[in-house]
């Protein structure tokens, strides 16, 4: 590839690399949210099993992350 072609490829690579890094960071955040949701669903299901759907029961201990 010519010198100009190398610079052209480098510029487009930088663009795609930045985009890729951004998407990977967002994907990590999404998977973390998915885990948290699953955990909260589990806690809610446990509460339903314990209290039989009574809304005035005592709060359960929820891990804060």
């Amino acid at each position: 590839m010519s010198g100009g072609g190398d610079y052209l490829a480098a510029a487009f690579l930088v663009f795609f690399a930045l985009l890729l890094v951004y998407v990977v960071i967002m994907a990590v955040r999404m998977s973390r949210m998915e885990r948290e949701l699953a955990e909260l669903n589990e806690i809610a299901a446990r509460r339903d099993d314990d209290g039989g759907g009574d809304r005035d029961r005592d709060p359960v201990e929820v891990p804060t992350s």
Partner: protein
Amino acid sequence: MTFHGSGLRPLSIATAVVLVAAFALAAFYAPEDADQGIIQKIFYIHVPIAIVALCGFVAGGIMGLQYLRTRDRVWDLRSYVAIHLSLILGVAVLVTGSIWARGSWGVWWTWDEPMLVSFLIVFLLYATYQPLRFSIEDPERQARYASVFAIVAGAWVPINFAAVRMADSFIHPRTLGTTTGGMPGEMMFTFLVALVGVALLYVTLWKFEMTAKQTRGQIRALRRRLAGEQAPPAGAGRSAAPQVHV
């Protein structure tokens, strides 16, 4: 509360299609520049990113203004996300511009070119936005100060751009409205498709990030409800990003 996830899938598909079309046009349709050769094709990525980044900064200012008018925290979040994305695009503008400068002029950077220096100043100005937010603990005050910053800086962007265009000496090529007849039709068409593609990418990522942040806010609210808390504890977890409470 408005949710930003609607229409994300068709928007993402449209973005991918238009961007691929733009890159294909740049590679196979747009002619090579007689003066600079193939390296001029960096223009089809560098200039649209620069235009969209600057428009994003201005949009962030308008959203900040909306926050001050309505005091609705979602406008602060919108402004924050717009500026955050424009900063990321700003990095791409500086890096692709430096690569173009190296290939075309033989230097990575030159301090006597108003277009380059003015963009760097705008970028560095906005680089202080996140530290400013992080330095203020009270969320209400943080949103207010950040909005004022976004409005003032956003107003300065077009003024700065106009001032630079009125300057006399340039080695940086002019894109639009040149006195020498402008670009050939094929180049202009390719440029416009690339501009639409990058603008769509910006809107898609903005909606994506807004949806993610709102979902995160909902998860936090759900966690609090399950723990029996009514409101988040005061001063809990300082953050530069606005916290949207559901």
